[in-house]
C-alpha cells in the first residue's frame, strides 16, 4: 500500500518511508471488515435464495432470503460509512432477528434441522463479535471534565471596547470605511 501511495507522488514531493500509528482503532478495522462481509453475505442470499431455502428446510418460494439479503447489504453500507456505530448496532439487531427466525425453523418436522442448528451456532458466535465491536465503537473518551469557556471573548481589551472600534470593510476590495463615511456615501 505504501509503495502504491508513493507511486502517485510527484518526483520531489515527500514519500512515505515508514508508516506509524493510525487514527483507526482496531474496532474501526473490524467493523469495516464486517461491513464487506455483510454485503457479500447479503448478495449471496439474494443470488442463491432457492438454495438457501432448501438448506434450511424453508418453503422453496419463501422470499425471506431476499429480504434478509437486502437488509444485510444495507447494514454493510452503514458499517462502511461514517455512521459505523449505527451499522455495528444494526448488525446486532439483525443477528437477533436471524436467530429468532432460525429458532422458529428448529421444528422437529424440519428435515434440515441439523443445518439450522449449525447455522444457529455460527450466528451466536458472529453476534458475540458484533456486540463486542458495537460496544467498543464509542466516541473519543474525554480526558478532562467539561471546560468553562465563558472568559474566552477573544478581545484583549474587552467586548465593549471591541464593539466601539468597528469600521466598515468593502467586500469588493477589502478597503476600510468608517460607519460614518459609509453613511455619508449612501446620502
Amino acid at each position, binding site marked *: 500500500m505504501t509503495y502504491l*501511495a508513493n507511486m502517485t*507522488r510527484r518526483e520531489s514531493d515527500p514519500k512515505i518511508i515508514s508508516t*506509524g500509528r493510525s*487514527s483507526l482503532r482496531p474496532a474501526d478495522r473490524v467493523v469495516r471488515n464486517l461491513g464487506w462481509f455483510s454485503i457479500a453475505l447479503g448478495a449471496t442470499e439474494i443470488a442463491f435464495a432457492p438454495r438457501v431455502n432448501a438448506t434450511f428446510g424453508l418453503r422453496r418460494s419463501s422470499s425471506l432470503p431476499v429480504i434478509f439479503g437486502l437488509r444485510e447489504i444495507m447494514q454493510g453500507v452503514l458499517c462502511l460509512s461514517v455512521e459505523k456505530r449505527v451499522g455495528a448496532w444494526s448488525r446486532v439487531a439483525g443477528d437477533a432477528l436471524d436467530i429468532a427466525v432460525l429458532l422458529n425453523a428448529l421444528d422437529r418436522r424440519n428435515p434440515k434441522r441439523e443445518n439450522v442448528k449449525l447455522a444457529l451456532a455460527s450466528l451466536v458466535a458472529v453476534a458475540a463479535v458484533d456486540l463486542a465491536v458495537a460496544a467498543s465503537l464509542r*466516541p473519543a473518551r474525554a480526558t478532562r471534565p*467539561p471546560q468553562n469557556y465563558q472568559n*474566552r*471573548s477573544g*478581545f484583549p481589551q474587552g467586548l465593549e471596547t471591541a464593539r466601539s472600534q468597528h469600521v466598515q470593510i468593502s467586500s469588493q476590495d477589502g478597503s476600510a470605511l468608517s460607519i460614518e463615511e459609509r453613511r455619508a456615501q449612501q446620502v
Partner: protein
Amino acid sequence: MKALVWHGKEDIRYDTVTDPEIQDERDAIIRVTSCAICGSDLHLFHNFIPAMLPGDIMGHESMGEVVETGRGLNGTLKKGDRIVVPFTIICGECEQCRRGNYSVCQRTNRNKSIAEKVFGHTTAGLFGYTHLTGGYPGGQAEYLRVPFADATHIKVPDGLSDEQVLFLSDILPTGWQAVVQCDLEPTDTVAIWGCGPVGQMAIRSAVLLGARHIIAIDCVPERLEMAEAGGATTINFMTESVVERLNELTGGLGPEKCIDAVGTESHVTFSQPDTIYDRAKQMVALESDRAHVLREIIYVCRPAGIISIPGVYGGLVDKIPMGLVMNKGLTIKTGQTHVNRWTDDLLERIDRGEIDPSFVITHSVGLEQGPEMYRVFRDKSDSCVKVLLKP
C-alpha cells in the same frame, strides 16, 4: 521528517516521510513551528471531498521559520524569517490575484487541467487538500515546501506568539471574509450557523465590523458558551426551534445577514428529518453534501437579505429551494477565502490588541498525537474546539 498522512477514510497516520525539496526558484522551505487541524480537514478525514490519494500529507494551517529559499524570491524572504502560510497558494501576478481574488489564482493549481474539467475553470492550489486543487503536501509536518513563496506568505513580527498569528492562515480571515461579504449595516442582525472555529471567528469579526446583534446556532454547550463570551446570543438547535427563535429575536422579520459556517456535514438528528434523508443519500453516493443549514438559512433569512457561505461544500447538493432564493430576492456569496486580501489589516488588529485569535485553542499537543486528535476533534469530545499541533 514526521508528518500526518492521509491513508483513506478516517485513517490518518503519523508517518516518517522524505523531506521536501526546493522544486522551483520561487519555492521556500519552512521548519513548521505550529500547525492546526481545521474543520475542513474533517471533510477529508471522512473522505467527503473527492480526489484525495493515500500518501497525501494533511494540513493547511501552518507557520514556521524559513530554512531554505529558491533563487527567485528576489529578497522577499530570507532564512530565519518567521512566516504564516496562507492555505491558498498564490502567484500574485495573474489577473485574479491582481484583483485580490487570491483563492481563484489562475496559475498555482498544478492539476489545472483536471480542475478545469471538474470546476469549469481552475482555482488556486491549496495545501494539504484534494488533488483537484493541486494535491500539494500539507503543513501538518515538520517541514513544508511553500510554492510561490514570494507571494504566498504573511511575515509576522517576533513579538507575537505562534498562537496569536497562526490562524491568519485560514480561520480568522475566513470568518472575517464571511462577515465582510454580508455588507453589514449598523442596524443588521447577523445569524451564524455553526460555532466551530470558523463560526467563532465570524462572531468576533461581526463584533469588530459593527453588527447590531449577533446570533449563534449550534448544539455543543461549550461552543455555545464560547460564542456567548464573544458577544453572541445563542440558540441550541437540539433544545429549541431555530426558525421560531430567530423570528422571535428579530420581531418576526428574520435576520438580514446569515452565515453558514457549517458546510457539507450538517449535524444528523431525528429532530431535523432532512438530515437523515441527506445522510442516507450521501451513504450510497447519491448526494455529496448534507445541506440542512443552507435550506434553513434560505427559509429564515429576511427577504432581500444576504447569505454568506464560508462553510465548505464538496459537490452536489440536493433539494435547495431556489424558488425561495429567487422570490425572496436573496443574495448568496461564497468562496474559499482570499486570505492575503485581509491579512495585513488583521495582523495589525492582532498587534494592536483588538483581537487575540488564540482564544479558540482548546488543545495544544505534539504532532505525534495528531491521529488521536483527529478523532477527538471530530467527536467534539473533551470540550474540543480547536487543536494546535507542535511538530
